[in-house]
C-alpha cells in the first residue's frame, strides 16, 4: 500500500537523519570552539561570533542530511559562518551612520573576505582559542557566569546540559550567559591575549573556573544526573587543551596534574552506600594508573619550567605524593609537610593550615601537629568548621589526653549536620570515655 511504503521511506529517511544528526553533533563538539574563536577575532564580539557559528550549525543540519557530511566539515562551517558574517556586516553598514563605525565594519568585511579557512596556520587557530578562553573567563564576570560561558563556548555544551550539570534551572543558565555576553560587549573587552603584566591575574581567573567546574563534577554523588561527573571530563579536556596552547605556564600544568590525579580516585571515592571514603581509607587498587601516570607527567612538565612553584603545582605535588604511595602506610608525610609549608606561605588559608597540621602530626608526631592546631583554634578562624575540633580530638587522643579529646569530638559532632559524620564523631567520643583511641 502506498501509505505503508511512504511511512517506510519516511522512517528510513528519519533514521538516516538521526545518524547524520549524531555525526553533526560530533563535528560540533570538535569544531565549535575553534569556529567561535576565529569568528570572534573577525567580528570582535563573542556573542555575535557564537550566533554566526550557530547559524552555520543550523545550515549544516539542513543541508548535510541531503548532501552528506563534507570531507572538511570544519572548513564548511567556517565558510558558511563567514558568509553569514559578511551579510550581517553589510546590513550593519547600511544601517550605520557614524563614520567610525562605518570604517570599522568595512574593515571587518575586508577581514572576512580576505581570510580563507583552509590557509590558517595551527598557531593562528591556537591563538584564537586562547583568546576565547581568556575572554570567557574574564574577571569582569562572576564565577558562575564564567563557568557557564566557558562550558557553552569552549565545551560546546547546550544550555540544558549546563543546567543539569549545575543543578539550576535552564532559564538561570540562559540568563547568566546572555548577561555575561552583554557585560563583555558593553565593557568593550578586546578579543586579545592579556599583556604580560596582566597575564598572571588573567590566567589565575581561567584556572579558577576550570578547577571550579572540575570540583563541581568531583563532588557529584552516585545516582545524580550523569552530566555532573561529566564535568570532570570537560574540565580535564579544557585543561589539557590549555596546556598545549600555553605550555610555558607552569600553573596550567599544575592544575592539569592536580585534576588528573584527583580524577584517578573517582572510582575509589564513594562507598557502596554512596558515602564519600577518605583518601587514606580508599582501596588503592581502584585508583586509575593511567591518570596517575598522566598526572605525574604533567607535574614533571610544570616543574621542568624551573619557576617557583605556584599553588596549583604545589597542590599537585601533594596529590602526587599520595598517588605514589602504594598503600596508605607508604605515604611520605615528611615531604608532604614540606610542600604544605610552601603552600601555606603562598595561600595562608586556615583550611590549608589545618591540612598542614594533619601532615605535621603524621610526619613528626601528634604533639607537633597539635601545636599547630591549637594555634589555629586560638585564632578563631575556623570556629564553625567541624574538622578543626575533629583533628584536635584525634591528636589529643593519640597523646592519651582522653577527656579533652572527648570534649573536642562532641564539639565537632555539634558543628556538622552530616548524619554519618555525626555517628563517627560520637563513636570516637565514646571510645575516649573508655580510654581507647
Amino acid at each position, binding site marked *: 500500500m502506498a501509505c505503508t511504503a511512504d511511512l517506510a521511506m519516511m522512517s528510513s529517511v528519519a533514521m538516516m537523519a538521526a545518524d547524520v544528526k549524531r555525526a553533526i553533533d*560530533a563535528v560540533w563538539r570538535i569544531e565549535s570552539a575553534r569556529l567561535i574563536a576565529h569568528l570572534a577575532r573577525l567580528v570582535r564580539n563573542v556573542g555575535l561570533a557564537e550566533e554566526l557559528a550557530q547559524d552555520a550549525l543550523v545550515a549544516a543540519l539542513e543541508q548535510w542530511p541531503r548532501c552528506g557530511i563534507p570531507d572538511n566539515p570544519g572548513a564548511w562551517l567556517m565558510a558558511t559562518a563567514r558568509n553569514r558574517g559578511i551579510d550581517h556586516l553589510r546590513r550593519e553598514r547600511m544601517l550605520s551612520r557614524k563614520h567610525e563605525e562605518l570604517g570599522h565594519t568595512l574593515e571587518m568585511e575586508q577581514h572576512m573576505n580576505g581570510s580563507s579557512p583552509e590557509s590558517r596556520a595551527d598557531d593562528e587557530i591556537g591563538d584564537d582559542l586562547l583568546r576565547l578562553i581568556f575572554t570567557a573567563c574574564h574577571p569582569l564576570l562572576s564565577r558562575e557566569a564564567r563557568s557557564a560561558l566557558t562550558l557553552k563556548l569552549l565545551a560546546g555544551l547546550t544550555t540544558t546540559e549546563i543546567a543539569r550539570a549545575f543543578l539550576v534551572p535552564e532559564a538561570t543558565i540562559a540568563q547568566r550567559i546572555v548577561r555575561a555576553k552583554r557585560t563583555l560587549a558593553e565593557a568593550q573587552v578586546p578579543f586579545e591575549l592579556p599583556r604580560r603584566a596582566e597575564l598572571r591575574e588573567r590566567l589565575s581567573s581561567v584556572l579558577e573556573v576550570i578547577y571550579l567546574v572540575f570540583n563541581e563534577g568531583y563532588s557529584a554523588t552516585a545516582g545524580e544526573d550523569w552530566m555532573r561527573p561529566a564535568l570532570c571530563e570537560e574540565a580535564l579536556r579544557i585543561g589539557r587543551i590549555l596546556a598545549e596552547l600555553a605550555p610555558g605556564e607552569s600553573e596550567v600544568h599544575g592544575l592539569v596534574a592536580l585534576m588528573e590525579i584527583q580524577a584517578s580516585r573517582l572510582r575509589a571515592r564513594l562507598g557502596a552506600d554512596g558515602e564519600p571514603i577518605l583518601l587514606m581509607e580508599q582501596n588503592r587498587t581502584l585508583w586509575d594508573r593511567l591518570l596517575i601516570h598522566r598526572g605525574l607527567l604533567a607535574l614533571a612538565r610544570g616543574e621542568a619550567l624551573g619557576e617557583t612553584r605556584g599553588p596549583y603545582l604545589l597542590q599537585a605535588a601533594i596529590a602526587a605524593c599520595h598517588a605514589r604511595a602504594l598503600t596508605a602506610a607508604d605515604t611520605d608525610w615528611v615531604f608532604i609537610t614540606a610542600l604544605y609549608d610552601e603552600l601555606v606561605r603562598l595561600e595562608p588559608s586556615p583550611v590549608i593550615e589545618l591540612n598542614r597540621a594533619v601532615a605535621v602530626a603524621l610526619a613528626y608526631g601528634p604533639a607537633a601537629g597539635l601545636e599547630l592546631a591549637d594555634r589555629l583554634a586560638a585564632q578563631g578562624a575556623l570556629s564553625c568548621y567541624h574538622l578543626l575540633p575533629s583533628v584536635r580530638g584525634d591528636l589529643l587522643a593519640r597523646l592519651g589526653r582522653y577527656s579533652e579529646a572527648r570534649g573536642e569530638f562532641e564539639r565537632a559532632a555539634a558543628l556538622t549536620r552530616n548524619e554519618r559524620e555525626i555517628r563517627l564523631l560520637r563513636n570516637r567520643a565514646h571510645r575516649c570515655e573508655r580510654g581507647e583511641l
Partner: protein
Amino acid sequence: MRVMVMVRANAQSESGQPPGRELLTEMSRFNEELLKAGVMLSAEGLQASSRGVRVRFAGGRSTVTDGPFTGSQELIAGFWLWQVKSLDEAVEWMRRSPFKHGSAEVEIRPILEPEDFACAAGAAAVRGSA
C-alpha cells in the same frame, strides 16, 4: 567516556617492517591534533605477533604458544585510548585519521565505567530478589 581504538593488523604490520615515512608523518600530525584537542590519553603501536606469545587456559591448565599468529583475523597492530563525549565523536575523529587515504580496519569500544558495574550489579540484585 573513554574508548579504546584498536587498529587491525595487516600484512605490512605483521612483517615487522616500520610503516612508510609518509604514514608516520601523517600519523604524527594526527596524534598532535588529538593531543591539542584534549582527546588523547594514550597511543601505542604493538610489535608484530611474531614477537608475542599466547597463553591459553583450559581445564585448569595453561599452554603458551609463540607467535606469529598469522592465521588469525583478530590481531591488533596498535591502539589508542581517547576521552570523548560519545562514540560518534570517536568515529568523527577516526574519519580524520591518516587511514582515510588508504585502507584499514579499526574497532572502537567504550571502556567499562563504574556506573556500568553499578547497573549490572543493580540488575543482578533485582533478578536475585525476584
